């Protein structure tokens, strides 16, 4: 029984990491309708910036704060320069542009920082504690706490601030938003900026568990897409819960289903995506449009 709970607890922490990146993906999708395939690479790039700031001698907290600020600005810049010209275009165009961005960011990082791997320090140290025979690492608890805090802050921004109201309005009806005086372009820029900052945080949480290299987010992105799909793709809270379900399911499957083991764990997100799309395309929390003709 203790082993079972341990597997769930560990999966929960891993799932929080998927959820963190999924939140970034969802933020852009719900405001612009774009599935940003480059989200993981942007997070990777941000993590390298954090690593660079650490190398320059900044303390971890300051390096992280600096990285979030740079990512926010970078996300806004990318929206303005690369996405704006194709916004509102064909889905295929948008997919190709974000795939192009994926390759661009990946290559740029390789060119700047090389393809070797580096270790990235944990934000929470490596302590752990024991509750009834189940080991909790401080890092896992920290990851879950940070993720919950992120969703709380996003919720506050969306529900309680004017900018959040504008972001929701733009995602629902861009034409009508302009008629009430909202600058749609500026609002979308802010959305990309926030998503990039959330992605940066995800990168900084994930990097200590893997090694930091230019491809370290590639695998995570698949899990995040599964989490986002499960959560309905337009709900940050859904993305988090989706991440938790995927993380726990992955760990349980890897531990208890013999033929899956560590090698075939990647099947879990893929099966999850397939099942959700087949049987419940709006996910667990996706908003089916409430409308009355």
């Amino acid at each position, binding site marked *: 029984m203790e082993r079972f709970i341990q597997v769930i607890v560990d999966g929960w922490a891993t799932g929080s990491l998927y959820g963190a990146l999924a939140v970034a993906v969802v933020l852009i999708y719900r405001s612009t309708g774009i599935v940003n395939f480059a989200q993981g690479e942007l997070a990777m790039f941000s993590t390298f910036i954090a690593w660079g700031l650490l190398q320059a001698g900044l303390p971890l907290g300051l390096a992280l704060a600096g990285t979030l600020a740079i990512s926010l600005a970078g996300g806004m810049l990318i929206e303005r320069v690369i996405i704006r010209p194709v916004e509102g275009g064909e889905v295929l165009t948008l997919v190709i542009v974000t795939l192009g961005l994926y390759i661009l960011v990946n290559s740029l990082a390789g060119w700047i920082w090389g393809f070797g791997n580096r270790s990235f320090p944990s934000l929470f140290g490596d302590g752990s504690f024991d509750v009834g025979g189940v080991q909790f690492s401080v890092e896992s608890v920290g990851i879950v706490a940070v993720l919950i805090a992120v969703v709380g802050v996003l919720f506050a921004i969306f529900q309680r601030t*004017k900018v959040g*109201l*504008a972001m*929701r*309005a733009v995602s*629902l*009806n861009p*034409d*009508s*938003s*302009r*008629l*009430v*005086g*909202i*600058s*749609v372009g500026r609002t979308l820029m802010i959305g990309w900026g926030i998503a990039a900052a959330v992605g940066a945080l995800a990168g900084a949480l994930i990097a200590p568990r893997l090694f930091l290299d230019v491809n370290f987010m590639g695998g995570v992105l698949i899990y995040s897409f599964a989490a986002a799909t499960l959560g309905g793709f337009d709900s940050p809270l859904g993305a988090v819960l989706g991440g938790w379900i995927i993380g726990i399911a992955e760990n349980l499957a890897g531990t208890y289903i013999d033929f899956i083991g560590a090698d075939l764990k990647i099947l879990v997100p893929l099966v999850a995506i397939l099942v959700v799309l087949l049987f419940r395309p709006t996910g667990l929390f996706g*908003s089916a*449009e*409430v*409308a*009355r003709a």
Partner: protein
Amino acid sequence: MSLLEVSDLEAGYGPVTVLRKISFSVDEGRIVTVLGPNGAGKTTTLRAISGMVRRSGTIRFDGKDVSGHTPEKMARQSVAHVPEGRGTFTGLTVEENLRVGAFPRRDKAAVSEDMQRCFGHFPRLEERRDQHAGSLSGGEQQMLAIGRALMLRPRLMLLDEPSLGLAPKLTRELFAILEKIAREEGVTLLLVEQNANLVLQFADDAHVLESGRIVMSGTAKEIQADEGVRRSYLGL
């Protein structure tokens, strides 16, 4: 004095030109209507004023040249546009729809007052303030669209077929409220309508649009009395 002056306005979509050099003006404090059959360019006229379509010519609002203004800039000049289809933010609550209408404003206290005033005009909206706007009936959504426009504290309100899809009784009620808003709050109204009979009863001035050209302008009474207009548009 003219609040809005449109001269030689051409407008259209892509290669298609809908408006062919129309000129007209709207005097401050008046209720002005643009009449015309389907496809005459009524909606395009409003969309051109708001900067939502390709256009050329001159548009002056309150003496200032606003010909190149984007829709968001027009809104900040206190020109409120109630678009075709009502422009409801279906996923927001009724209250949020109203709040978003006041987006350019910084005067929080006055915004709350205006929301109360909206609820005064449309008590139905107050009953449903926490409901998702997508669940409202067509008539309620039209009230919400007008309420949202009022939240801007507009000097000029552009209304695109407010009667569309509403029962006759509801339409009359809505027009009575619009008239009250215009007379009591001094908001100038420019509305396009197909329902000429009804709108001429409460408008001050009217312009008749046909195939992208203004074929007649005058007071509502003159237009109503005109034999040609009566035959073509009023079905009398």
